[in-house]
């Protein structure tokens, strides 16, 4: 009896999507994998993972010194911050995170958010991610105006959840943006959000999945296995799961005490200036190995480490 050929054949693939348009000078393509992570030929691996650097709409009040010092005086100036992220640090995208509109963090209004969006659009030519504050009511009031301010730029609007998706989905649809569908570390809810959003007529090939990211030491292994299952479902031909994936590494990693504790608080843990960025970079690299297409980062050293890692694998 002849031996049948051994082959791993997958019927599906992750959508490849190209972010950025309108006045953007560059575009970024993510997704497109036709195989398990680093498991097949180079051409089946899809696009190189992309790095977005977080730019906050207002100066952060609670950032650990190691992180805040890395940005110095641009912290209160989103346009200058974005310029630094792109020109000095080499960000593929800028993620404007509108923390400052949160009721507990300044409760700024739509005018502020729109002004920040316009300034950042002028300051840099890379595609933008426009990420709300996480308060449903405030996001529904402010983010549609942010979306309109960036109409035609093919930005990424974040995020919609199982309980709050209608307003942002309609806005992203009207303004031609991509959309981040968020689930609380739950693959079943991820699929459900995708179904809800696509039921509103939003094309699946403009969606990006987001599982609220845990950091190294704080449940990251759950994120890792959810990402793995999402990739396998996409490869098995599940169109509702064949979407690129984003992770919020920066804010999660820097919430860990291992990243932010000062040398006085934890003398045995080594140099705080190196420890935090290592924590962030390690979290990001582990998640890239689970199949993440886009990571949001914060510390310049972590960005450099992750960039070098990606380049070493993809060049």
């Amino acid at each position, binding site marked *: *009896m002849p031996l*049948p050929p051994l082959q791993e054949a997958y019927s599906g693939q992750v959508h490849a999507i190209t972010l950025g348009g309108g006045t953007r000078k560059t575009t970024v393509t993510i997704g497109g994998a036709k195989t398990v992570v680093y498991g097949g030929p180079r051409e089946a691996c899809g696009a190189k993972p992309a790095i977005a650097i977080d730019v906050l709409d207002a100066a952060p009040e609670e950032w650990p010194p190691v992180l805040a010092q890395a940005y110095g005086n641009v912290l209160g100036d989103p346009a200058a911050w974005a310029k630094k992220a792109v020109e000095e640090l080499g960000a593929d995208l800028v993620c404007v995170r509108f923390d400052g509109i949160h009721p507990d963090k300044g409760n700024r209004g739509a005018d502020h958010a729109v002004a920040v969006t316009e300034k950042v659009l002028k300051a840099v030519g890379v595609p933008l991610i426009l990420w709300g504050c996480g308060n449903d009511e405030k996001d529904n009031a402010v983010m549609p105006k942010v979306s309109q301010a960036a109409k035609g730029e093919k930005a990424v609007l974040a995020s919609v959840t199982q309980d709050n998706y209608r307003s942002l989905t309609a806005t992203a649809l009207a303004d031609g943006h991509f959309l981040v569908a968020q689930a609380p570390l739950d693959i079943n809810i991820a699929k459900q959000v995708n179904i809800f959003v696509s039921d509103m007529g939003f094309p699946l090939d403009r969606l990006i999945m987001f599982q609220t990211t845990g950091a190294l030491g704080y449940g990251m292994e759950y994120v890792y296995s959810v990402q793995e299952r999402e990739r396998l479902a996409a490869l098995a031909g599940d169109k509702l799961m064949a979407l690129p994936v984003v992770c919020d590494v920066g804010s999660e990693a820097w919430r860990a005490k291992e990243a932010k504790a000062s040398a006085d608080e934890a003398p045995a843990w080594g140099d705080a200036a190196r420890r935090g960025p290592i924590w962030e970079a390690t979290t990001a690299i582990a998640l890239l190995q689970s199949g993440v297409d886009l990571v949001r980062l914060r510390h310049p050293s972590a960005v450099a480490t992750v960039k070098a890692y990606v380049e070493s694998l993809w060049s």
Partner: protein
Amino acid sequence: MIAIGERINGMFTDVKQAIVDKNPRPIVELAHRQTEAGASYLDINVGTAAADQESVIKWLVETVQAAVETPLCLDSQKPAVIRAGLAVCDTSRGVLLNSSPLSKKSDPEVLSKYVAMALESKGSLITLTMNAEGVPQNVDRRVEMAAEILTKCLELGLTPDRLFVDPIILPVNVPGAQQQPTSILAAIDQIKLMSDPSPHITMGLSNLSQGTAQRSLINRTFLAMAIGHGCDSAIVDVLDTALVDVVATAEMLMNKQIYSDSFLKAYRSISGAQR
């Protein structure tokens, strides 16, 4: 689940009438409805309506493929009828040939003929675990025939991913046939172990409930059981909503589809060809 829509078959009176009248409308309508219901393939069987089966299958193939994109499953026990259908079939969409036994009294080499046509059309082939002596009554003989079929197909170059094995279901109310469903499940278990990837397992499900009360219930209950044993295809009435719901649920429980609260809808949103 590779669901093969069974309705375009001259054994059904509406299809038979349409063939006699050369009226494409009922055929086109069945093609559309089965496609919308998620059929992966549409079975095309000329039945007994006309003497010239070769020209009828050509007409059916042309009528259906002009109406829908769904790949076809050409269904005849006569190689010449399949060949006639293939001559006009757009096989670039994929095609399934239905079906060949291991051997026949009148044609000991029948399997080779079907395999050759499957290879030529870059399609797949349904084979039946029966030979010149008929349908086996026990598990071992079914498995043995499946092994012979698999070996023959591999020798001729048809890989297991393009081979469907139909272990043949008889109506459950035929005298002496009531032990067959369990034999079939036991046979499926063993056939799935023969190669990796294993051949697909398919079955003409509606045959099981011929002449019974509660046809749909019997069909869908057995299909759920068979899916649990690794059956991944069936020739079914895809218009039976309750049956498709059972397939979606069984596949979800087998971890083939990721659960979501809208899993029935999610199953249907994936077009038949992608399952």
